[in-house]
């Protein structure tokens, strides 16, 4: 009986009725081990086996909801049971389409010859890419390479500074309780000053250095530090810091040595994720850069701005696609080290 029941439940998961959702979530909620496998994105076949084992486990005295034969019949006829899931899935599909279609469209049209009709046509040409990458006689200002090189160097500087600044404070905030901890925490995890305002404040405070490489590095570091602090903090929060620290100390390591050779290596994933995120964001930071930049070398985001505001459509598409490639690489790297997307949230 139990097995038969579980089979009907899983087969229903495929039909788009709202009422099976409770059934399918329930199957994974009982045993911790199963929940883990499910979160890593198991294919359908594995979900089936989960269902079986879990149903058996519940028969030994699990949730009382399972004791009746068919507990879902009552609400079956309600409109939300019929429409709820299709509507929600529809919203998701529409949103994902709105988010993705322009990105794909931009990338694809960067290879098109003309964009005068409804859809770009004349595939495949690399001339726009050659143009923005400077592989032709277009002059220095027309291509992205000098700006990109400059921005990559600046972003790397900001990233290094962020590690030096963000990792210690993330540790202090997760390990210790101290006076005004909440205030320091809010200050560290939320960008208090928006880029535009920080830009004009920088210009007046450091008139000589505001738009220099150093000014940009420091500005990017402050603007993006919350991302570093948050990712590293969530790494620290998943560790038993006190025990780690005490074990190392009792084995004779000094406190600085404990921090550098035991604590920091344990948070490697979080630090790497924070590095990738802060670096990518700084490589195309616009609001602050727009306010402080003073000519050559022109940062990459200013190159993008010039293209978007007054270059031919297809050439802008190619310029933006360069950045898309960087973001895709960043997301793939983040997935490699355990994050699912471009976010500080961990799974």
């Amino acid at each position, binding site marked *: 009986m139990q097995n038969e029941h579980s089979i009907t439940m899983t087969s229903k998961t495929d039909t788009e009725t709202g009422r099976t959702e409770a059934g399918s979530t329930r199957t994974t909620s009982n045993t911790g081990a199963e929940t883990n496998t499910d979160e890593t994105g198991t294919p359908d076949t594995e979900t089936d086996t989960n269902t079986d084992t879990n149903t058996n486990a519940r028969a030994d005295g699990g949730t009382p909801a399972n004791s009746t034969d068919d507990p879902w019949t009552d609400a079956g006829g309600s409109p939300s049971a019929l429409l709820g899931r299709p509507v929600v899935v529809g919203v998701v599909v529409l949103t994902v389409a709105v988010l993705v279609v322009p990105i794909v469209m931009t990338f694809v049209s960067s290879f098109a010859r003309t964009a005068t009709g*409804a859809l770009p046509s004349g595939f495949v040409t690399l001339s726009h890419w050659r143009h923005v990458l400077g592989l032709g006689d277009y002059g220095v200002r027309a291509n992205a390479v000098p700006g990109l090189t400059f921005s990559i160097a600046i972003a790397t500087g900001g990233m290094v500074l962020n590690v030096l600044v963000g990792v210690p404070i993330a540790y*202090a905030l997760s390990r210790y309780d101290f006076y005004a901890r909440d205030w*320091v925490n809010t200050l560290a995890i939320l960008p208090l000053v928006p880029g535009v305002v920080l830009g004009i404040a*920088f210009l007046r405070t450091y008139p000589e250095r505001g738009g220099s490489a150093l000014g940009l590095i420091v500005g990017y570091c402050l603007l993006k530090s919350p991302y570093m602090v948050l990712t590293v903090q969530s790494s620290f929060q998943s560790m038993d810091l006190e025990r780690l620290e005490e074990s190392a100390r009792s084995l004779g390591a000094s406190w600085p040595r404990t921090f550098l050779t035991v604590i920091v290596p344990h948070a490697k994933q979080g630090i790497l994720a924070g590095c990738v995120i802060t670096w990518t*964001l700084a490589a195309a930071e616009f609001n602050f850069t727009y306010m402080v930049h003073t000519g050559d070398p022109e940062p990459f985001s200013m190159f993008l701005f010039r293209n978007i505001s007054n270059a031919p459509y297809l050439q802008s598409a190619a310029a933006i696609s360069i950045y898309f490639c960087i973001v895709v690489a960043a997301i793939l790297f983040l997935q490699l080290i355990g994050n699912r997307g471009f976010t500080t949230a961990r799974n």
Partner: protein
Amino acid sequence: MGDTLQRTLTIAHTVAFPTTERERERRRIAVMCLPFLVLAVFAGFVPLATMARMSLSAERLSNEGWSLEAWKTLTTDSTYWWIGFNTLWFAAAATLVSVAVGVAIAHALEKYSLPFENAIVAVVSFPIALPGIVVAFMVIVLLGRQGLITQAIAVFSGESAVSLATATTIGGLFLGYVYSLIPRATMVLRGTYAEVNTDAEEAARSLGASPLETFVRVTLPEIRPGIVAACILTYRSALAIFGTVLILQGGLVVVTLRIDRELSIGFNSQMAGAIGLVYVAFLIAFTFVGLRFVRTDAVEI
């Protein structure tokens, strides 16, 4: 007064020269927080203070002399009140839509076994990496004169695409806001959804509640802290949007755009400083008041 000073000095002394383990711990905390605080002071507080001085300066190009002119204009000229009002309601509307859509996406990702779930998460988080100017280009790709949606409507209605283009109207600007805010809202809500206890939902369903009733009465109260956190963070991001407005314009002047215009037309630095200061003061006050209602560990970007 003298007592407090003496106590502060004693604490400072023990932090610098600790003798007990407790004092050493205090020194560690100070050392660990120091780099960030130095950065915050030199890159954050000092520039903000200079900007406050800038708003009171009599000279445009440097901080010299004193004048309240900019503040007088800011408080009496109704243009600025309208700009503030526009910024607030537009950001609020975009936040509400984004958080609502974010709840739907987070719900679907957590409760339904959707195909390609990893890819959906990656795709939804993608726009977080995009600067505002690129988001503006995405709106142009959809709603501009050559935009996909514009062209599609033009084909079906027979009108010219030029008159149908809405990228540079307030609607296009709204799409731009929502485009960059939905990913942020979704990522905050995903963290909340992961912590929802599913037992109560199952009980409600098995006792005969419909999915909608279950969501409204059981799930929603559980994710409320996450929704509040998402609203606060999304609203903050919405207020800080600049690049998108700069490209699209959209017939709406928001605070960030006005700051830029004060500087680009006539370099009215006192005015820009005054607006910037009010704007930052509002952001900080909003954040601290808002976060009183949320646990800080719900904060994710």
